[in-house]
Structures are given as structure tokens and as C-alpha cells.
């Protein structure tokens, strides 16, 4: 079973201070650490688990700058067989749609039974690339997948809906799944795997190799801004004892205890 996994290197912003840079359209990235997008790491792990079961090859592909090769190499160390970087520096501004078109053009000569992507990237949060790519390739898709049971020809997948509900689908292969976090437990790369992966070649594709002339951008960032406050929070200050005391009094006043 051959699987393509699309991954993205993203700044880790969940617990970091995020500041807008001088262009107003980008954030200051030099202080942030970067890593594989969270749901992409689950997508990769799911592919590795299937490879362990069925054999076959995993190709990881990422549209990114030079440092993306570090992330691709980690993917190789975690079980991918081949890695492709598409040079983001050749393609100006990107959105989910444009990214999907570029990836489509880049994998035209690859065989695959499944394509996995993460279900959302934590930076631009589009949730577009996977489903768009499936449509461009004219293959069935399932998004937000949290369970896969596949044979050579068809896959039973569970999609995560709202309210704790899941949807069980039966899809034919080749197909594309966007993978939700929690589907598995992504592994760490062992040192031996790292050493082997460090020597592997990463195929780099640029504009010359991607012949599609009609790649379109749907959207462009005009500006970034700090979200307006919908509610004014009252911060309770002081030592943990003081702030907790104030809060307990508020509970009392409001009749909550």
C-alpha cells in the first residue's frame, strides 16, 4: 500500500507570544520554534502504521522553504521512505487552494493508494488542502478522520462530527483522508532511524519541474490584527492565595457555592 503524506512545517504559536511584523501581513517568526503541524504528525503516524501492516512505500511531501527539509527528514526518521520538498520560494503568496494545485502537479507521476493530510494547519487554519487536492485528483475523500480500517480496495473510515458523533463511511481507494488528532499516538524517531534519515536525499522540486501554468490564488492576506475583545475580563491579581480568595468571594456573592 503506497501512501503520500502531505506535511507542513509551522511555527509553534499555541504557547508563544505572537507579534505582527512591519509588513502587517506576517508574524515575526525568528523567535518562534517550528515543527511539523500537529495533525500532520498524526497523518504520518497513521501512514506508518498502515505500512507496517500492508507494506508499501510512504512519500512525504511538503511545500516549504529550505528549513522544511529538517521536518521532512524527521518524517523519514519516523518511517517515511521518500521525501519531496516543493520550493515555496518559487511560488510567492500561498493559500490552501494554490497549495493543493501545486501539490497535485508535483505528485502527477507517483503511484498511491491513499493520501493523508492533517485536517487543519495551526498557522493559517484553512482546512482546505486535503479536500481540494482530492477534488483536483478526482478521487474520493473523507475529512476529519479518526479511525481507518482499510483493505487493498476499500476503506472503512470514521469521521468526527460535532457533539461526540461519528460518521462511518465506506470509500473506495485510491482516496484521500484528512486526519484528525487523537487517531493514534505519534512516535518519536529513534536515534538509529535519525542517523539513517540524515543521509537520505530529499527530492527538491521548483517552478521548472511543475509545469502547470494556471495555478490560481484565491485569497490574499490584507492585514493581520489582534482580535477585538468580545468580553472584558476582570483579572484577579495578587499571590495565588490572594487571587484565589477573591475568586472564592465572587462565587459566594453570586450564590455559586
Amino acid at each position: 500500500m503506497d501512501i503520500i503524506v502531505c506535511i507542513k512545517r509551522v511555527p509553534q504559536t499555541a504557547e508563544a507570544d505572537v507579534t505582527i511584523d512591519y509588513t502587517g501581513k506576517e508574524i515575526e517568526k525568528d523567535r518562534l520554534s517550528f515543527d511539523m503541524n500537529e495533525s500532520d504528525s498524526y497523518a504520518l503516524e497513521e501512514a506508518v502504521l498502515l505500512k507496517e501492516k500492508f507494506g508499501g512505500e510512504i512519500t512525504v511531501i511538503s511545500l516549504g522553504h529550505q528549513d522544511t527539509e529538517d521536518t521532512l527528514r524527521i518524517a523519514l526518521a519516523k518511517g517515511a521512505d521518500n521525501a519531496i520538498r516543493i520550493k515555496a520560494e518559487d511560488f510567492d503568496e500561498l493559500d490552501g487552494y494554490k497549495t493543493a494545485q501545486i501539490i497535485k502537479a508535483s505528485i502527477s507521476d507517483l503511484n498511491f493508494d491513499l493520501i493523508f493530510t492533517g485536517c487543519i494547519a495551526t498557522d493559517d487554519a484553512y482546512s482546505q488542502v486535503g479536500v481540494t487536492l482530492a477534488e483536483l485528483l478526482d478521487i474520493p475523500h473523507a475529512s476529519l478522520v479518526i479511525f481507518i480500517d482499510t483493505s487493498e480496495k476499500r476503506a472503512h473510515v470514521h469521521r468526527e462530527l460535532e457533539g461526540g458523533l461519528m460518521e462511518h463511511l465506506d470509500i473506495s481507494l485510491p482516496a484521500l483522508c484528512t486526519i484528525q488528532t487523537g487517531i493514534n499516538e505519534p512516535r518519536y524517531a529513534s536515534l538509529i532511524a535519525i542517523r539513517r534519515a540524515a543521509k537520505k536525499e530529499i527530492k527538491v522540486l521548483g517552478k521548472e519541474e511543475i509545469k502547470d501554468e494556471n495555478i490560481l490564488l484565491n485569497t490574499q492576506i490584507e492585514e493581520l490584527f489582534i482580535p477585538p475583545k468580545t468580553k472584558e475580563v476582570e483579572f484577579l491579581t495578587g499571590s495565588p492565595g490572594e487571587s484565589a480568595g477573591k475568586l472564592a468571594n465572587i462565587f459566594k456573592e453570586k450564590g455559586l457555592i
Partner: protein
Amino acid sequence: MSEIYTLIEHRQGEIRDISFELLSCGRKLAEKTNSNLTALILGHNTENLVGKIKSQAHRILVIDSEVFKDYNSESYQLALSDIIKKANPFITLMGHTAFGMDLCPALATQLEIPFTTDCLDIDVVDNKITVTRQVYDGKLNAKIAVRDNPSYLFTVRAGCFLAEESDLKTEIANIDTSVTEPDYRKFVEYIETPAGDVDITKSDVVIGIGRGIKEQENLAMVEEFADAIGGVVACSRPIVDADWLPKDRQVGSSGKTIKPKLYIAVGISGAFQHVSGMKGAETIIAINKDPNAPIFNEADYGIADDLFKVVPVLKEKVMELK
């Protein structure tokens, strides 16, 4: 006259809240662009559904067929691509839900019309569209210009438009369809999360824990506090992903929606997926080390300090005052 379409989302015979929000959003856009608002219902035995949204749009377009009883993006796409191609509405809206995320990019790509996802707001000035979206873990908003085109497709985030009453005169039209469920993607069944011993939707006081709790052993501290204040422990997604609490304790768009009297977010950063499940709480408290965490935008009271220091003291203070 141009048209705004909204796709009505329903599941297991019920119209979902997002559909009413989309109708609100659609009416605003229709007014602004001097358009008609059409609500699209794909379903089976749709009388009840149609009745629920009557007077909310200028027109309700019904495609009633057994094949649309349960949502399947592929059969929906087959029907909708025809309709949109023919009618060429200015804007088609759907929810940024498990449904809309699965459908919108594929449908728009097939129709070759520009689209974007997870819009908080959509603004039209002289037929030019800009949308507002959230980026970088919800820490920033982005104003996005969309490529010029006669027709657009957007998914709208839940909770961004208020469902409102309306008294439009509604025309109802039916469209026949020959769509059958494609073999390459078949809906099999819905699977419910098994119910656990605690129903977090029934408690007046809910303490939600998130990534900040760091490890499973620390759950005990929060459980003790919950016992002291007479509440139950719920959580955000990472806690369920790590298997520290069962799925039925998860609050948020893929978990449960709760409306307790008091919600205390402990070590939760406040991703919108979580917020959408708890913002109906009467009083919201956030305890998080990071004073810039988005959760404080939702809270009435906040303590920007180490939860491991605050929670045990808070438990003591609550016991004293009880």
C-alpha cells in the same frame, strides 16, 4: 437580481444551530447587496425541516430524495454543482462544520469558483469581498481579500452570527434530482460516543481542564476541587487525545455543548473549537499562566497564574466559605 444561497445543515431529522446563523448572515449579505436569499435544503421527508426555517429566507429550494437523508459530501456535491452552475448565485454559504469542511473545498474546486473557509465575517464593498479569519492558534485575525469572480463559496464559523427571527415572505420551490449515492463513498451509519457515568451537560458547575494540566496524575487535584465546589470535570480536546478522560467529557465543537451556571477553565488556552462548546455558560472563569491566552477573551474573571498554585488554594477557600 443577484442571489445569496445558504445551505441548510441538518442531522438525524434536526436542523443544526449553524443553519439559523447562516440564514442571519445570509440576510445581512442579501440586504447589503440587494439580493435575494435562498435557503437550500437537501434531505428526505423535508416538510418538518422546511417549516422550521420558513420566513427566514426569500425562497426555500428543496431537493427531496432518499439519497439526501444522511449527509454525504459526494452526493451533495453532485446535486449542488448542477444547481450552482445553473443559478450562479453571488455567494453560497455553508457552515464551517464537519459537513462544510468536507464539502466546500471540493465543490468550489469542481466549479472553479473562489472560496475560503472558516470566515468570522464577510464584507462586500462594490462587489469586492474581504473576509475575516482567525490564524495562528486564534491569536490573530486576518483580513483576507478574495479574488474577483461573479460567484463565491464560503464556510462560516459557528457562533459568529446570532440566529435571529425574521418575517420574510418565503416562496418554496422543489427541484427533482436523479442523484444516487456514488459507490466510491457510501454512508454507513452514525456512531454515538458511549455515555459515561458523568453527564457534563447536566451540571451547574463545570471545571474544564486543558493541556496546561501537563500530566494525568494532576487530574486528582482538579477532581478534589470539583468535589469541593460541587462540580464535574470536563476537558478540551488534547486531554481526550491523550486518553486521560473519556470522549464524553470533551467540551467543544467535536464534543459537547454545555451551558452551566459556572464554567472554570483550568489550563485551557481557548481554541475556538473549545470556546464554541462553553461560551453559553453564565459565568466563565479562566485560570491560565499565559495572560495573552485567548481564553481570557471569553472569561468574566481571570487569574493569570500557575494553576498548580491557584487551584489547591481555591479549593481551601471554597471549603471555608461553603
